[in-house]
């Protein structure tokens, strides 16, 4: 189970990387920690002609802080976040999510940008970043653009990125000191991809009340105004107000038909709400 032969470049700058990708056409593929792409290459499910390794680009391995937001470079790893090597702008939510992704050895190389670009629906970041209202900053030879995280992923393994377009960073609004969050994932065994994700955040400073339903074998459902799921604004014991019908309607609309997945998603969201309540 070895990959097909491909060429490999490890550029030192974004310009060089996007140029290589543009030249390589649709058979060129960007790679960061290779923890998702690696298995697909080994299984020959992915058969690129060229890999462009972006981990040597130092600006992708940085974090920028601003008063209202934090910008995490695409090549920051799950372990970097888990271990607190980047400032905590989300009251522990990112570290909590990061620490449960796959296994420690994978987290030491797997990156946030790689995970978003790979767009596995069961991956955590494709749910967690939209939950936080993050934006994804991308770069191509035509310049940079900013995409709301919730519209980046289109369906399983499919994103709106162009073939020569890289994720440069994830831009996260800070959660205030009064913000609460809940994030619950169910898997059958530790380290496995989750079978359901439910997440909510509420930040009284700016009134943001968001929810996500993830790992639904398709792009996650992001609810910008979670009040519609709880019959009103955030309040104490919010989990008791979860409107199951509203959740099921959302799942219906997305074509999530599997009963197990639907029920688990409901429970995940309710427990995420309970977690926020207790926080």
């Amino acid at each position: 189970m070895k990959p097909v032969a491909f060429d490999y470049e490890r550029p030192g700058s974004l310009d060089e990387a996007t140029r290589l990708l543009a030249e390589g056409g649709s058979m060129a593929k960007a790679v960061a920690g290779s923890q998702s792409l690696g298995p697909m290459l080994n299984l020959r499910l992915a058969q690129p002609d060229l890999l462009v390794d972006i981990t040597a680009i130092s600006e992708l391995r940085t974090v920028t802080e601003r008063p209202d937001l934090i910008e995490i470079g695409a090549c920051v790893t799950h372990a970097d976040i888990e271990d607190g090597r980047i400032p905590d702008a989300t009251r522990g939510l990112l570290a909590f999510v990061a620490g449960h992704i796959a296994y420690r050895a994978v987290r030491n190389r797997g990156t946030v940008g790689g995970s978003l670009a790979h767009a596995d629906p069961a991956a955590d970041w494709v749910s967690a970043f939209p939950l936080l209202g993050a934006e994804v900053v991308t770069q191509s030879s035509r310049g940079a653009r900013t995409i709301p995280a919730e519209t980046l992923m289109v369906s399983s393994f499919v994103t709106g990125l162009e073939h020569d377009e890289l994720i440069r960073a994830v831009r996260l609004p800070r959660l205030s000191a009064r913000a609460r969050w809940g994030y619950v994932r169910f898997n059958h065994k530790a380290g496995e991809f989750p079978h359901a994700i439910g997440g909510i955040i509420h930040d009284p400073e700016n009134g943001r009340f968001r929810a996500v339903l993830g790992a639904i074998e398709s792009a996650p459902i992001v609810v910008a105004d979670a009040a519609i799921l709880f019959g009103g604004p955030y309040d104490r014991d919010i989990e008791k107000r979860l409107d199951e019908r509203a959740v099921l309607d959302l799942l219906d609309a997305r074509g999530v038909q599997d009963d197990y997945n639907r029920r688990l998603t409901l429970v995940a969201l309710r427990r995420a709400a309970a977690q926020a309540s207790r926080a």
Partner: protein
Amino acid sequence: MRAFTIEINGKAVTAEAEPRTHLADFLREQRYLTGTHLGCEHGVCGACTVLIDGRPARSCITFALACEGAQVTTIEGLRDDPVMADLREAFSDNHGLQCGFCTPAMLVSCRDVVMRLPEADEARIRLELSGNLCRCTGYGGIVAAVKSVLQTRKAAGARPSAVHDGLGPVGARAPTARQGEQTARTPIAADTPSAAGGRPAAQIRETVTAEQWLAVETDGMELLQSFRVAHPRAQVWRFFEDIEQVARCMPGARLTGPVVDGRGDGEVNVKLGPIVGAFNGTVEVERDEADFSGRVRGAGRDPRSGSSARAIIGHRLEAVDDMATQVQISVKFLLSGPLAQFGRSGLLKDIADHLTQLFAANLEAAMSGKQAATGPDTTLDAATVARAALWRRIRALLARLAFWR
């Protein structure tokens, strides 16, 4: 082959590796460091875990060239490490190993736990070791060994040790020497086995029996789409008469020859994220005038992956009124080979669902005289479509159709 330098077990080494060679194969086949084992080559079993820049990482899904300039430590390089010496003794005392195959990598992970998490309790130890599968011991002896080493170290006043506090994947370094130069990449020589990406030259004509088509009907994954066009049914029906026109609406699909007596050759190129498929095969077209329905049956093989696909794409037209027609599209398909065996069938369904949506949207666009989202002979790169305004239309369409699904 590419020359590169890497530090292995404390010694700088200049070596050569193919870009596709993962670190484990490089260590084992070229450096004869066979203590690092391969158990799955997809990052789950953990038998290949080594230290890169002092932290555990999977050497089976990390390419050797990606470790240029990095420090790699294998079990062989930890012989004189004091923590490892304690762990070895504790493993032997607590029967933490049987066949020994997972053991070197298990030790690497245990060492990480001991050094990073001196306060770890049993539950934490177990969680931290979840990425190293052992099939022999039932883990009891391993956990006992880690606990005993933690206790001994605690008694001796050991503190957690920080390693590599930079951001980014372990192993990530400055660019390789060649970077920045405008060097052309070396093409693969035509006579090597790797030529043509390992694609077969010949083609096989699929023969599909009635029984197998029945299997597609009864067992295939089914996807449905429906949309309304503002044209009378007879006009829409004429549209479906032109098979080439219909095929053009299937993203990535192309007829490779004329359709004679309802039969022809075709291909479908699919690229979804990292997955690439190029299915060559045959199509058969049937129409039922009385019922305003028809179907295209396609069977093709993707020589790259060895996967086969069979699909029955049906359409049925229902007159809404004189000026509008409801078009029902159904796709049923069966896969065999590696793609079918790629366990997460839900994802395949999602991908197929996505394709079907694009197909329906393209049909709708074509019938309405609008530009289709994808050209007839482009590989289906769903991202291309997703970028287009079309995606918003599909989303809207989906929302409309929710009740029907």
